[in-house]
């Protein structure tokens, strides 16, 4: 093998080594892959959140029991009404 051919092999090998190293670095082997989101887990989380909201509503309703006035105070006034009661 002549020096000329040896240099050619050396250059080709260097180029190949460079691209292999480049591909390796570009793949970010040190970063962890993104976690796969399980749709059923998401749905479960939403359901749990809804249950917590409902539970909070029930707690507040229970706390309010008995707080209402027992006798309504109603009288005729000459103010413009904010809303109207009508046949439903």
């Amino acid at each position, binding site marked *: 093998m002549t020096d000329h051919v040896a240099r050619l092999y050396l250059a080709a090998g260097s180029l190949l080594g460079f691209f292999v190293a480049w591909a390796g670095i570009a793949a970010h082997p040190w970063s962890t892959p993104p976690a796969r989101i399980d749709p059923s887990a998401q749905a479960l989380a939403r359901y749990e959140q809804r249950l917590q*909201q*409902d539970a909070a*509503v029930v707690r*507040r*309703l229970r706390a*309010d029991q008995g*707080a*209402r*006035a*027992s*006798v*309504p*105070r*109603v*009288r*005729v*006034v*000459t*103010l*413009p*009404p*904010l*809303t*109207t*009661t*009508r*046949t*439903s």
Partner: protein
Amino acid sequence: MLRRSFAAMGTEVELFLDADESAASLLDDGERELRRLEDLLSRFRPDSELSRLNRAGALRVGPELLELARLSLEARACTAGRFDPTVHDALAAAGYDRSFELLEEDRPGAPRGGAPCGGGITVDAATSTVALEHGFRLDLGGIAKGWAVDRVLSLLREGGPSLVNAGGDVAAAGRPWPVGVETPAASITLELDGGALATSGRDRRTWRRGGREHHHLVDPSTGLPAAGDLLRVTAAAPTAADAEVLAKALFLAGDAGRAAAEADEGGVPAVLVSCDGTTTLAGGLG
């Protein structure tokens, strides 16, 4: 003032909350609660808990339907049967057999005759079970709406003075609120300081069958839409559920004179509008 309007329970709903924007989430809670109760208690939704009870005849139910069944029984006893939750089949026989928006303008043929009312209801709190007498089904329409209004008000009032109006069932808390009552001559304004108002009448929710007009207020003693000279009654009570029952009971008194006497005797503030256009204030309003 925070305000929200939306359609639910077959009617227009208004929520008022005298508070700043930081309390706006309470309106979300109120709307969500009303829709949740509609899902549970509508007789027009085949998958509602009420419809499942009506199909099964007996059912282990949730706390809401259990409580409403109990309240309905109490209301029937207190009104000597004028309020009756077992008018379901009588309403259907009169033509009100689907959600009101879906009733056609007119349909040929007269409606079937009245259906029996006053069916047996057994409420067993220990087992959370409601059982219906064979051949009867529940319609909680008005009292369920009133009860839902009371529940939504309980949520809103945490944020400040508040008012809930669901198609005429009005409950208020925190301060006096001016509420209009329609009369043939002009609108009367009632100042409601706590408690509730409800209106029952034959001037809306009417339909035609065979060219004749029918309405949704069934007289349980006949199983037919009530006759009489009253057009509509507005009554006040501590809760909207109670006001609904009282308005219906006074309407079924038949005429303004008798209804006014009953309102006076019971101390029920009431506005009575007759078909001839006269308006009577009773129960201390006059």
